[in-house]
């Protein structure tokens, strides 16, 4: 079993990110949202942690060290999308385009501000979960030493 995981774990991240991107892109007209996408990516990373331990995982994926920053950016993005309409005199979470206005599409992607909010949720969930896994892994490994 462990051989299978050893092979699968490092190769799972690419497909996971792909699936997450797909979910976000088509999310507003079909099943799925930023939360699910964030959890999918985080799960793939968590599987690496379980298989290889934090040391090796973080050495092979240097980008993980930015997880807290990614979470913060996600929170800020979500806040901005939610509360910028207040500056225009609308209630918070008034999404553009407003009902009745045609949505601009780039392929499957619909340019709606709600999708930007979803991206914020995705970044936050992903960043938070990876940070949590990292902290717990560090704690456990510190206990082992």
């Amino acid at each position, binding site marked *: 079993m462990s051989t299978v995981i050893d092979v699968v774990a490092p190769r799972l991240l690419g497909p996971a990110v792909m699936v997450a991107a797909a979910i976000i892109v088509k999310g507003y007209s079909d*099943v799925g949202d930023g939360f699910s996408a964030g959890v999918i990516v985080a799960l793939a990373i968590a599987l690496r942690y379980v298989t290889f331990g934090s040391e090796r995982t973080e050495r092979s994926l240097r980008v993980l060290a930015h997880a807290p920053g990614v979470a913060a950016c996600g929170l800020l993005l979500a806040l901005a999308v939610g509360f910028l309409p207040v500056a225009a005199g609308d209630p918070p979470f008034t999404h553009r385009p407003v009902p009745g206005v045609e949505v601009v599409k780039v392929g499957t992607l619909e340019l709606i501000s709600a999708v930007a909010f979803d991206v914020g949720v995705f970044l936050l969930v992903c960043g938070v979960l990876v*940070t949590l896994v990292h902290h717990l892994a560090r704690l456990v490994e510190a206990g082992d030493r």
Partner: protein
Amino acid sequence: MVKPPRGGVLAWTAVTAAFAAFVACLAGWLAGGGSVDVAWAPTLDLRLDLALDGVGALYALLATGIGTIVFAYGAAYLPLHLEHAGRAEAEGRRFWPWMTLFMASMVGLACARDLILLFVFFDLTAVASYFLIGFDRERREARGAALMALLVTGVSAVALLLGAVLLQDAYGTFSLPELFERARRDTTTTVACALIAVAALAKSAQVPLHFWLPRAMAAPTPVSAYLHSAAMVAAGVLVLGRVHPLLALDRTVLDGLLVVGLTSIVVGGVLALAQDELKQILAHSTISQYGYVVTLYGIGGASGAGAAALYVLTHAIAKSALFMTAGAVTEATGESRLSHLGGLAGRMPVLAAASGVAAATLAALPLTLGFFKDELFFGAARDRGTLVAVMAVVAAALTFAYVGRFWLGLFAGPRPAAPTAVPALLVAPVAVLAAVALAGGFVVGPFAGLAGDAATVTHGAAVEVAPAYHLDARAENVMAVAAWLLGALFLLLARARARATDTVARAGDRFGPRRWYGVTLRALNAYSDRLHDAEVRDLRNSIAAVLVPTGVLVALGFAFTPTRGSFAVGAVEIEDLPILVLLVLCVAAAFTVVRDPGRLRPVLALSVLGFALAGVYAVAGAPDVALVAVLVETIITLVFVGVFSRLPQPPRRRPARVPRSRGWRNVLAGLVAGVASFAAIWATLSRTSPASGDAAEQIARARDAHGGDVVTVILADFRGLDTMVEITVLAVAVIGVASLLRQGRTW
């Protein structure tokens, strides 16, 4: 050239901010005030309604004016204070933000005209005061005092919220000006007013909720000089002055205030005479002095409102000067007990003169602003009746006696202590306040004008406050002379006085409310510990603690709602076959979880159960739920496997049998929870058609929001604010984990 420490820069920033705010408030008041009214959450009837009217101007000017002076004092005091305690000067960084926040919330409270806004600022002052009183956090009594102040004023602040909600329910608004128009005299209004009064009285340290104030003297002196003379305790009477037109609807509420006020005057005054610690004398004096104000609000009417406003103003000036005197004397001599001090007049002449003026102001001697506060007080008391008038004279005599004892004990007498020199900045603020009090004794006009404006708001009609010196034998003058004579008598009869006040103080310690506070707190703590122990004794208890109350509550819900027609039994058709197969899988997995004695197999069976349920959702037309269920199930499985891989191998023997009584309890808990959730799910599934309600509307509107998937649209659009709050909780949780597990490292 030594670089000024960072604490100093912060301190002077705070002083500058306070002074700028003072100038702004003064200019605003002179320009005739103004108001801001933003309905920021109209569906909840929440408004940001701030007005710099009479009451607002009076308390905002006090908060910023006394604030400026006390902050300047603190800039000199705090470094000395930290040095004595052997702490780094940089710790001042934890002091000034709270002081400034306190001042800001005090100004907000002064101007708020909306009950919810009032409550928010009320609690903000309590929170800031918690950190300020507990500033010397390594001292146990400072922490206890901070907690006591927070509990007593914070718990009673809930009464303010209750009162606000009662009034909103009855009259449909939180806004005070609207309530003044709509409110009628009835039981609801009276109860609501009494609740608001309770919150205000606790904040103003009135009997029987006064005991937190003397404990709060564990705070550094600038905190006492500010919070416990002009701000925190003033917040209570500020609320009384703000909502007074509501209180005045029912005479019983006012009579209640009268009784509490007079009791507080006497209790505070007698206990002030019994104290030896300088700050304890002043703390009990504050209880007594705010008793005056509460009494005046209890008397009510134009004269009561005007006298109360001038009283608050005068008292704040005099009392913070006396607090700062106590701090300066303690810094100079290292001694804080009156019995060990004396004869300082020759060594510290400026401080003696300045605090002499402050003491004279509090004791209402002529040529100070204080004379006028008592003139108005006597006038209002005389109008109310003979009993109150007599009490007023006794009250003033008590004030005269303890203020005299305080000042004479410090500066007169034969025992010349040898004080060290103190920075001029510890004396100058006292002198400034004394000069203000003295100026008020000659030109009372501006002070009376401010008090008159405040009283106009309190009384609800124009009030003229016009105190003046009258050289004749009118009642106010006779009462004043009587009070001085009686006070002098109290001072001279030192031995009899000490015996009487000590008896009262001892009785208070033994039977007083502070003891009840301790008993209640300990009992609650013990109860909470017992409950917690029972809950966490073993895993079964922890689970039962969640499941059984939930089950019982659900069962109660079913018992009290009509259930006719809510349990439908549908037909089983051939296209339901996939669901049936999945459900059979669920049942089989559930049995494995319960019966298998191993470790990993039950966990895997649990995930099979979860995935099968996710399959049911997918087949039953809820793909969103299915997706989330699959993800959550994966996480749980991964966590279980991760945890189990770290546990030691279990011994190869059968686990000990569960005792019979314990076994029955398990069955009972399982039954309660199982039956309740079964009933709840059945009832929910019996209503599958979203024909009405929010769900139907959300489905109908998802198209308008350019969304094809209702769940996503709900999360990102219809209930976007909820999602925002939830993801913020996630971010806060990770901060919590980082600070608990890894000393706050972000990575």
